[in-house]
């Protein structure tokens, strides 16, 4: 049956051996990649599609980028505070060493320096807290990475089945009910999810909580 006849009769045209060879190569590459990632033993189904994987990867890039910016900004501010304290300490030490200060002036200079150190110390503590909080991206992106890896495993499984059966495989199954979803990567336009803590609090308040 030529392709035209096959199309006219509604039957799927037979794929050439080259197609299956290419599919085999793709499957092998995916298999090797997953082996390198060390995730082969845990085959899991994924109901997510490739477009969703793309948005999840974008979410990871966004979160890691934001975290890097937060950390670098906090480090810049902390380093500036540190430099200011160092400069003030050197200035005070030089004045004391040169014996240019009277007793009263010396005490005032020391007190001013201590006050400056205390204020800078408080700011640096806040910068360190900000740096610590910025690491929350690891948890959020880790959950998303797990989803994408599960999708890759599912995809590999589907390709293997396709090769074995030499026929179009079924598409990814529906997600099991009750599955936890992890971070919402695209909350825009959705009414079934909250996008911030304020919405959580509003929902809880509406329940009299």
């Amino acid at each position, binding site marked *: 049956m030529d392709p035209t006849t096959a199309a006219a009769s509604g039957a799927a045209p037979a794929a050439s051996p080259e197609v299956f060879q290419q599919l085999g190569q793709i499957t092998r590459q995916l298999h090797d990649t997953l082996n390198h990632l060390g995730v082969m033993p845990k085959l899991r189904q994924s109901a997510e599609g490739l477009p969703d994987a793309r948005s999840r990867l974008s979410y990871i890039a966004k979160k890691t980028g934001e975290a890097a910016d937060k950390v670098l900004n906090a480090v810049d501010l902390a380093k500036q505070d540190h430099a200011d304290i160092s400069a003030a300490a050197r200035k005070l030490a030089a004045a004391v060493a040169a014996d240019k200060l009277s007793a009263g002036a010396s005490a005032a200079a020391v007190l001013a320096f201590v006050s400056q150190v205390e204020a800078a110390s408080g700011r640096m503590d806040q910068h360190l*807290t900000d740096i*610590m*909080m910025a*690491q*929350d*991206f*690891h*948890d*959020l992106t*880790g*959950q998303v990475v797990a989803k994408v890896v599960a999708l890759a495993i599912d995809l590999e499984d589907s390709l293997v089945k396709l090769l074995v059966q030499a026929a179009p495989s079924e598409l990814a199954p529906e997600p099991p009910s009750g599955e*936890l*979803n*992890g*971070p*919402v990567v695209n*909350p825009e336009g959705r009414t*079934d*999810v*909250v*996008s*911030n*803590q304020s919405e*959580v609090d509003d*929902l*809880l308040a509406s*329940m009299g*909580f």
Partner: protein
Amino acid sequence: MSDLSQMKFLVVDDFSTMRRIVRGLLKEMGMNHVDEAEDGAIALHMVKNNKYDFVVSDINMPNMNGFDLLKAIKADPDLKSIPVLMVTAEARKEDIVLAVQSGAAGYIVKPFTKATLEDKVIKIMQKRAAGG
């Protein structure tokens, strides 16, 4: 309200980074006794064998998730008075409702701020001290 510095906290999360963040924030708030568990099953074992005053738990975890941990704690007469604050990336409204119906003392969505965690912990402890 109880002296927060003397209270025993248990932080439950499968991501060590998040456990360290929550523990660090609780310590900044003055809580000196903070233990960690990496999933609900380990947490339940710890809660049964130690006297904890407060549990901060993730939801999406292997072995036993946060919902099952919450239900197990609330079903145990010896444990049910322990407040359980959910801190999770699960943002579906049905999850929030389910958590509250299962006995959660509060619900925080990730990412969150130090101020949010502090506010929730203090309000929960105030409510508990008032007999709520």
